[in-house]
């Protein structure tokens, strides 16, 4: 039994994936909070405990993400851009354009037929196309972020936001609520605004099918649908899109020990 672990310490959530010979054995996700070091340890233990394992059973650990440098028990760190590419290539080998919608950043990543990154672009210092935008709107609608996807399905008349800026859209959403707009229509409008911003990012790396969306944002079916509509193409989503980078990190860990 050759076990490895990939840990992705993101700005919003931390994820750990335990793999054996390239197959996921267990995974865990938890909010990153303010102490990345402790969170990395906790999320790793959570994933290991699901299989009654401990860190001693792990041959190699690769850390990635915003707080990768804080994972002091990792054998190696890799950027989440490479890890996302490695993860998505194993799940969907035909994907050539990957869209990662994380809590703080959105990224468009071009991937070649070997799962290697050829070009990538990140959103600039702007929350407009990131998960933060959804968090802001969830807060003012007084709902949980996990409720957004289901709630937005009921939209019949999406609100048209005049801005892609998260700060201005927040005040615009407050005005629409006051005018009586339904939460479902506000959420669908936000999805459209985000999708427009994200697809602009994707256009900058060049449009090439097939597309996949990863990261926490990919758990929001309404957002994924809006991105697909903007791209005029189908968009693939893994069963657990939030753990794609951690899975990629685990695959890289497997590669290291098989060398």
């Amino acid at each position, binding site marked *: 039994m050759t076990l490895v672990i990939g840990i992705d310490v993101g700005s919003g959530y931390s994820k750990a994936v335990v793999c054996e010979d390239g197959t996921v054995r267990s995974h865990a996700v938890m909010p990153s909070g303010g102490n990345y070091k402790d969170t990395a340890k906790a999320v790793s233990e959570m994933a290991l405990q699901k299989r009654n394992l401990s860190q001693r059973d792990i041959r190699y650990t690769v850390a990635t993400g915003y707080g990768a440098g804080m994972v002091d028990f990792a054998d190696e760190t890799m950027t989440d851009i*490479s890890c996302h590419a490695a993860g998505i290539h194993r799940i969907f080998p035909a994907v050539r354009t990957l869209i990662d919608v994380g809590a703080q950043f959105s990224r468009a990543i071009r991937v070649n037929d070997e799962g290697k990154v050829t*070009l990538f672009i990140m959103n600039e210092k702007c929350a407009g196309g990131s998960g933060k935008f959804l968090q802001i709107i969830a807060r003012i609608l007084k709902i949980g972020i996990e409720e957004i996807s289901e709630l937005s399905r009921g939209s019949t008349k999406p609100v048209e936001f005049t801005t892609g800026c998260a700060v201005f859209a927040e005040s615009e959403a407050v005005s629409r609520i006051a005018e009586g707009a339904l939460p479902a229509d506000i959420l669908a409008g936000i999805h459209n605004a985000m999708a427009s911003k994200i697809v602009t990012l994707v256009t*900058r790396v060049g449009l090439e099918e097939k597309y996949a969306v990863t990261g926490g944002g990919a758990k929001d079916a309404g957002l994924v649908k809006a991105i697909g509509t903007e791209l005029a193409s189908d968009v693939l989503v893994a069963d657990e899109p939030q753990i794609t980078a951690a899975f990629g990190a685990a695959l890289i860990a497997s590669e290291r020990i098989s060398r």
Partner: protein
Amino acid sequence: MAEEKKRRAVATKTAAGIPKFVRGNLSATLRAKEEGKKVAKAFIHDGHDEIMRAMDIVPAWGESFSGVCAAKRDAEKFLQKAESDNFSRSLCTYATCHIGFEMAREEQGGAMPEGAPWGGMGRPDMILGNGQLLCDPRFKWPQALQHYLRDVPVFVTNMYYPPWDPNVDHHEQEKFYVKYCTEELHETVKFCEKVTGKKMDWDRLAAVVDLSDKTWDLFVDTYDLRKAIPTPMDTGDAMNTMVPITFNIGTQEAYDFYVELNNELKEKIAQGIGVADPEKYRLIWAAGLPSWFALNDFQYFNGKGAVFPVEVTYRDHEKIERLDLPKTNDPLERIAWRWVRYWTHWYDAARKIPGSTPKVARIIEYFEDYKCDGVVFHSAFSCRSWHAGIIHQAEVLRKVYKDIPILIMEGDIVDISSYNEADTHNRIDAFIETLEAYRNKQKN
């Protein structure tokens, strides 16, 4: 208050002498009045250098002053000053930083703003501008300055060259453009004669132009030494060593600087000394002015074994022989031919690659000559003219080379609020991983 920042090391001893050059240029503007000389607010790469040098006019380089403010992380006060009079942050920050500085000085009745980096820059007696194909600040900056420096005369020329069109043979249009540029330069001389009260010494101008030609050749020969593996100098240093050719062309000091740099590079090559040890990846800086406040990022690349033996930025010179300039007795016509031919000499190469542009043809030439492994673009948001088209250039390169590692960095030349060090280093790390993956693919 300027933010403290770690001093950046340069790889060559010669480059370490550059701050003296820059300070010298600034202090010359401050001494000019005592020496009975006139100061001109001028632009780099405008074709006016030799005219100013031959007439003892001291150039006050706005781009250089703003770059110094940025490098010292002390530009914010001037950017805010300009912003307070409705100059948007999305305008050229070279321009807005300098305009903010001039606004502050005028408000203080001509007294130098306190804490102006390196003693500040002298007040101009004239403003020379030059409309080019894309860079609108070259005529808008002088116009805007005139709002604050009302007594200072402005003269804006138009040094155009044939625009790129893959279906038009620009050679047929050259003479027309050269004639136009020559006339514009003659008008510039008349304007300078009027402001200075002196007549142009045409023999002296011819000698200055000859010295410039010699410096162009020496500069290119010197930079070509960087083709050596490992490269003895990379773009981190070139962002310094560009100063003499960019701001002091037509002077003996500029020529002597490249003699010294040439000797040092030859010595390094003989001893096998490179910028990175070991040199793992060779990159081309394919577009963009750098973030002057973040030049340490070049060392971040170097620390990972990545070097830049070549860049397009500030390499706006070519071997004179390659430009094949027609003979003329008029030094201004000589400048005009050199100008037009320099900007158009990649047109023929670009026509051979469907969908290409001269900028891409140039990148391809350097990429191959300098045996590069990857391409880095820097998109400085406030400089539209130099940075428009980066995505298109990347696309064409990907079509030509099928698969090529490309990194697009984002920032600004002067405005530090555009910059995020952790994010930038994360992007560089990911790019290094991509280069490594390509290397492994080639090995297999």
